[in-house]
């Protein structure tokens, strides 16, 4: 669970690719220590870019980031000592076995906890002598997660590790992650564009749309403070956040929970996915407009 002290921060963070493509536009964000935070947004929302600036892979165009109070562009090894990273598509070495990957991690990082990583893989029945090439996508993701967990890092940054996994593999991955974070007291930031996957596992939610933060709250608070209006009810209300099409084509509007004085009918509690969709609908402006 989070302690409230920020461990991952951005200050007016903007990132531009080329001359005109803004991936992030002036983001101020403080992820508290402890627990799992979901970083949710559609493709090209800037999730990977945000994570990569924290890992020190992408330099900010403007503003800055800190990890545990350290600027990765001033002290990269200081940051890497704090961070375990799982890339978007877990890329393992084809020519190495699972155990070779653990040995490699020990070679690269002398304090790597090989036994811990091995135990995590044993629990999943992933044999050490299997070549990485012969593993399923889910198993490869688990090996990548075990490598990140074996660093015993205080912060885990997971860049859409669930995207290419089947539902069972996704569930297993989240189970291992949740268990590890809870038992180690680590902080995890998990990016995904599939809200239903992260709903059960995460404590906090950050919705990122077109390069800016649309919502940052605890999952419980996000659910408690929003309602959904069906078919145009309260659509003009000042508390309306965004409208989107429902499963049957009906118009749904996400509202901040109205005060008791407001009498609004046709309301029901919003699911987390609907909260996210409402905010994404509210943020349909281009990053260039936002940057301007």
């Amino acid at each position, binding site marked *: 669970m989070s302690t409230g002290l920020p461990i991952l921060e951005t200050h007016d963070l903007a990132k531009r690719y080329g001359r005109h493509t803004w991936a992030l536009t002036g983001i101020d964000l403080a992820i508290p220590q402890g627990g799992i935070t979901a970083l949710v947004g559609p493709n090209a929302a800037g999730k990977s870019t945000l994570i*990569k600036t924290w*890992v020190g*892979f*992408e330099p900010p165009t403007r503003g800055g980031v800190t990890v545990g109070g350290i600027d990765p562009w001033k002290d*990269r*090894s200081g940051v*890497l*000592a704090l*961070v*375990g*990273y799982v*890339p978007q*598509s*877990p*890329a*393992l*070495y*084809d*020519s*190495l076995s699972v155990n*070779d990957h653990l*040995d*490699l*991690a*020990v*070679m*690269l*990082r*002398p304090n*790597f906890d090989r036994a811990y990583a091995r135990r995590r893989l044993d629990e999943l029945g992933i044999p050490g002598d299997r070549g990485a090439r012969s593993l399923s996508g889910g198993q490869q993701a688990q090996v*990548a997660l075990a*490598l990140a967990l074996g*660093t015993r890092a205080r912060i885990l940054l997971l860049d859409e590790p669930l995207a290419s996994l089947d539902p069972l593999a996704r569930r297993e991955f989240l189970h291992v992650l949740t268990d590890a974070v809870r038992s180690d007291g680590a902080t995890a930031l998990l990016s995904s564009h599939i809200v239903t996957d992260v709903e059960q596992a995460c404590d906090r939610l950050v919705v990122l749309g077109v390069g800016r933060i649309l919502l940052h709250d605890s999952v419980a608070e996000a659910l408690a403070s929003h309602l959904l209006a069906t078919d145009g009810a309260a659509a003009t209300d000042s508390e309306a956040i965004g409208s989107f099409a429902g499963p049957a084509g009906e118009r749904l509007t996400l509202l901040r929970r109205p005060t008791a004085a407001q009498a609004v009918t046709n309301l029901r509690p919003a699911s987390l996915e609907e909260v996210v969709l409402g905010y994404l609908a509210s943020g349909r402006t281009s990053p260039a407009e936002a940057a301007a």
Partner: protein
Amino acid sequence: MSRFGSWLILSFRLHRWEVLASAAAVALLSAAMLWFAWQLRTLAGTDPGCVDPTAYAPGCTQLAQRFYELSSKAEWLSYLSWMAPFVMGLVLGVPLVSREVEHRTAGMAWTLSRSRAWWLAMRIAFLALVLIGLLLVLALVSEVLASAVFPNLHLDRDFSWYGRRGGLVVVRGLSALGIGVLLGAVLGRVLPALLVAIAASILLFTAVSLGMDRWMESDAIIQPFGVDRAGGRLLGQRVQLPSGEVIDYGELQRRGLSYEAIQDDRLYAKPEDIGQADKIIGYDRELLVPGPLYPQIVLRESGLVGGTAVLLALAAAAVVTRRRPR
């Protein structure tokens, strides 16, 4: 297993095909060179007088002919040993970073490692070790072949097969490795990096070769054409003016001293001047690095090329530290 053993095995597995291909190439080339060396030594042992080109004994024609034929073929192998360090250095060096970026393993490796420079150092160290080991074999075997081809020369004081034998074979390989690693890191794609690295190697080694020639000029001597070079390295032709001044042919032209006739080593303005001592424009001369300077020149070039290899590796570390993985 010890950390060193683990490092060796993992590094080998990461570069298995390049290392095996390089080892196979060296094994084949070395075997062929040793076979030729053995054949040549056997022939020379039959009648040592028959393989001394300065004093063929009567009745040597057949043996000398056979020796000449084998030597000519061995010469081709020596060109392969000249080329091997460049090819092996690039084959081993280019994929080191570029394949990691291309296959997206760099992100994982760079966040696991305490620093990217440490990661690169560990990877380069293994490849450098492999390269040094393989090229040392080649360097020694090519010395053996050279001594069989030139049984009457003192090869430690002779520029014959310069760069095709001895320590230069090793340091040139390290330099090519540095080029490969650097361009692989810059471009991040194996094939484009390999093509650019080939071109860059040609440019760099042409520049080094020209630079070395200029450097060696300060040690060179002038001697008339036709005089035994005694293992010396020919740097070029020069003209010695009757005043004793030595200039090159370009300078001769710039001074308007055109010549239309040469007899022996004497230059004349017109054919009708031939034989008139007062009409001699100058004397054709060789610029030669004396054979005894061979070890010194090899050491000098090894220092230059080896230093370049270190600089290239440092540049590669700087690129790797800053570049983004995919």
